[in-house]
């Protein structure tokens, strides 16, 4: 039997990776326990944002880039706004405008909450508990699903109070916000945010205590924003655990992007070093000392339940990392909401100029970095966007290679499920992760 297994060449092909922001597939060729090929194919139809942004007015950019992703429009809007505020030389003015940064942080908290909760409970948890979907899971874990829907709804409400709606909100603009909401509308969310924070603390412990996390240690280079005094979200230098420490504008120079035939997402590597990881695990490992006190007091309990202290080198633990970040976002939101004062004015006026600016913010699934160049009248002449899932692509492939050794003794269906599960660890932007796995098994006779 064992010799037959060793000689068995099999191809694990996932023809439609569902939970990625767009469409992807997985292709793994194994010969016995040797991996011959591990490819994450991203075949999401190219939409050419960086091409058609040229010639647009800079004020239109945040509305346009939001449409890259329906799950994390705030990540695109904030990165576009900060980068263009730098290009227009008003970045500091906007920072000094009382209340505007608070509004952006609150909206981003909302996006982290809705996106993290959607991913944790609707998309990722079914993998750990052995269900094909949250719909099936709801039959046995109805209360958990209902609690998750309550949290997700609050996240969406936080986005909507500042942006009008949860998907492609309209409130934010280059220079600040078109208009700030009335204080009473904002304060109306305080109680529910606090209640949701308590609920999420319980759920975070539930996730840490009741789930058996697969083991897979790897020596990742974790990359995230690292602001001095706060957990990363909108601002800060970009750092890693292996010595990267650069200003926002410099990040592009550190990264080499390349295209491979099997993907419409460009692969990113840190020059002279290689693949890296962005996302909740990277943020938590690099910034755990800056978590909100509510999340900080939970951290040792979660670590104890998992039997693992930080840094976590296992991306299956991205689930508890997301849970801690959700507690952080809820607790931070509760504080900021309660202290909200309606900013007037809500934006700075901008005189267009020729300029250049780059900025990245922390999308729920990792650093989303933008760079723009403008002409004198504010027309965009160059746009460059590095979304998180593209940056993680090579790391996902390396994970698949590493994990392949564990798949040798599994039957095809279990092996395929494990591969899907691994890819979902990365919360590839709206998650249509690896469904429709097809297995062709070939036996090589010697």
């Amino acid at each position, binding site marked *: 039997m064992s010799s037959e297994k060793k000689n068995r060449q099999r191809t694990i092909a996932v023809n439609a990776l569902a939970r990625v922001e767009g469409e992807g597939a997985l292709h793994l060729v194994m010969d016995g326990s040797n991996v011959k090929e591990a490819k994450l194919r991203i075949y999401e139809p190219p*939409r050419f944002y960086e091409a058609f942004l040229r010639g647009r007015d800079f004020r239109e950019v945040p509305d346009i880039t939001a449409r890259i992703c*329906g799950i994390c429009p705030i990540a695109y809007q904030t990165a576009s706004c900060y980068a263009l505020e730098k290009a227009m030389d008003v970045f500091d003015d906007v920072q000094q405008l009382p209340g505007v940064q608070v509004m952006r942080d609150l909206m981003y908290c909302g996006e982290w909450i809705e996106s993290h909760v959607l991913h944790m409970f*609707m998309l990722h948890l079914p993998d750990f508990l052995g269900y094909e*979907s949250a719909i099936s899971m709801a039959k046995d874990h109805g209360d958990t699903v209902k609690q998750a829907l309550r949290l997700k*709804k609050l996240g969406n409400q936080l986005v909507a109070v500042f942006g009008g709606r949860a998907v492609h909100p309209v409130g934010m603009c280059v220079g600040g916000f*078109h208009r700030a909401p009335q204080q009473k509308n904002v304060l109306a969310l305080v109680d529910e945010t606090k209640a949701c924070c308590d609920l999420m603390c319980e759920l975070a412990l539930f996730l840490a205590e009741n789930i058996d996390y697969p083991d897979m240690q790897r020596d990742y280079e974790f990359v995230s924003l690292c602001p001095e005094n706060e957990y990363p979200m909108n601002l800060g230098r970009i750092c890693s655990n292996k010595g990267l420490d650069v200003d926002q504008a410099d990040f592009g120079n550190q990264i080499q992007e390349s295209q491979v*035939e099997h993907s419409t997402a460009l692969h990113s590597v840190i020059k002279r070093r290689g693949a890296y990881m962005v996302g909740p695990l990277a943020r938590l490992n690099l910034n755990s000392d800056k978590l909100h006190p509510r999340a900080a007091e939970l951290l040792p309990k979660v670590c104890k339940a998992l039997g693992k202290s930080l840094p976590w080198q296992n991306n299956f633990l991205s689930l508890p990392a997301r849970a801690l970040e959700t507690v952080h976002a809820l607790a931070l939101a509760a504080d900021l909401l309660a202290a909200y004062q309606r900013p007037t004015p809500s934006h700075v006026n901008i005189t267009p100029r020729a300029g250049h600016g780059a900025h990245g913010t922390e999308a729920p699934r990792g650093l989303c970095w933008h760079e723009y160049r403008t002409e004198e009248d504010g027309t965009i002449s160059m746009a460059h966007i590095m979304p998180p899932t593209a940056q993680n692509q090579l790391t996902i492939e390396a994970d698949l290679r590493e994990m392949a050794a564990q798949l040798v003794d599994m039957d095809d269906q279990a092996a395929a499920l494990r591969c899907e599960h691994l890819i979902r660890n990365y919360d590839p932007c709206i998650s249509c992760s690896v469904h429709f796995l097809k297995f062709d098994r070939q036996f090589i006779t010697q």
Partner: protein
Amino acid sequence: MPTAAQPKLAVYKFSSCDGCQLGLLNLEDELLTLVGAVQVAMFLEARRDVLPPPYDIGLVEGSISTPDEEERIHQARRDCKTLIAIGACSTSGGIQALRNWADVHEYARTVYPHPEYLQTLETATPIAAHVFVDFELRGCPVNEKQLLELIAATLIGRRPHIRTHSLCVECKRKGLPCVMVSQGLPCLGPVTQAGCNALCPQCGRACYGCFGPMEQPNMSAIGNHFTSKQNRNPREMTRMLRLFNGYLEPFKQASDKYEQREKK
């Protein structure tokens, strides 16, 4: 438990951002009821299992922009009794339809070092340009309540209540001051279909037309107002009209006219 009588719902994705199908999952209060009323037969974003066709209702998100999608949409039509296009991409081509006025090969060279690896069409087009569509729900993104109304109406076999009048009606009902009159902003509200609840005027900004043209909009009247009263130049006019629903007549026709003027 699913029963044979439960209608089967399928959700398809083509070139898009996933935001409109997310609208389904954003119906937090109604989601579990909805899942009880239909059998979710195919919805990659939410579940792994796929039930075999035929499906009673197919919701289609996204535009057709690759050779593969051109094939798949015909199969989707064959598999669904009722096929509904949801969102700007599937009803107008979406923002990616900007390539329809450009050279897609130049676009590809701009973004990718190896454009020859790509499989892409010269155009991004709405679903109705390829197959018969039973209903088109506008919006970038769709309004979730409209989506729910549409599904409910389809399930019980009545006409959905979706207004096709202009955004101005919605704006006036809310008693909002007109941003065009009071601030001189280039608001597309008078020619844009209602449905978003006048979000942009509520934020004190001009409507940018994410629900596409209303039924029979007066494009020349609003165009004349923008060019003569607000001194907008043809380039601004073209840009304004060519956004998330730019490839939809009559926005397309009007923007083509301003582009001609720009070139003169």
